[in-house]
């Protein structure tokens, strides 16, 4: 029998979270989205290489709003996940993890940088 009243260390549902927590949970969510977005990426790669006809078809195909949304979602999630991942790699080398302030600053930097990249992706996808 599992004791349902077992105490939980750091019950995340009961405390106010700092920006670093949101950057972390978004990293996980964007990772899961990217995992499914890979199907979209492979589909595009398949069409782009299969034949000259399918290559030329791509342009018309991704003009469809649903295709646009799928490609945009996959690229946006990948962009955020990559930026937040690079932040992790930088912290692995001991930079920016020495204090809560530097962690918070690098979290905001990751948010700003990924928003900028997602804005560029958005204008690119819309312009098709």
């Amino acid at each position: 029998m599992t004791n349902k009243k077992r105490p939980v260390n750091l019950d995340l549902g009961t405390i106010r979270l700092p920006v670093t927590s949101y950057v972390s949970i978004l990293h996980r969510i964007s990772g899961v989205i990217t995992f499914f977005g890979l199907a979209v990426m492979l589909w595009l790669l398949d069409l782009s290489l299969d034949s000259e006809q399918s290559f030329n078809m791509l342009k018309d195909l991704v003009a469809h709003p649903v295709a646009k949304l799928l490609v945009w979602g996959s690229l946006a999630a990948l962009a955020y996940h990559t930026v937040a991942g690079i932040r992790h790699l930088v912290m692995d080398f001991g930079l920016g993890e020495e204090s809560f302030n530097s962690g918070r600053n690098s979290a905001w930097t990751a948010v700003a940088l990924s928003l900028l990249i997602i804005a560029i992706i958005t204008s690119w996808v819309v312009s098709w």
Partner: protein
Amino acid sequence: MVGIASSFSQSGVINWLVQRVSALVMTAYIVFITVYLLANPNISYAQWSELNSLLSMRLFSLLTMASIASHAWIGIWCVLTDYVTERLLGPKADIIRKVLQVCMIAVILIYLVWAIDILWGF
């Protein structure tokens, strides 16, 4: 003990390292493809298929796909073992998590086979 048998490797240190090395490979691939497409905005099928038929490019793409496979295996295992738990979902959580892990591994294998078929099938 939560389903350690389904984790990518039995060693946490190896998982940690694989997660980071695969991240570097994927980042290199993203940077290369982005820069290449920015440098060739109106790329033709001939040029694109020629690039992707180079053995070095095929191996780079395959290495990236292998990185995605291991990276996703480790990452999704972490997510599932953190959230699909008895505390959060009740007594059925263990079996649900194991089913989801098997699904995750199946999807990764399908991606791998699909990618090889794309890369060597044109």
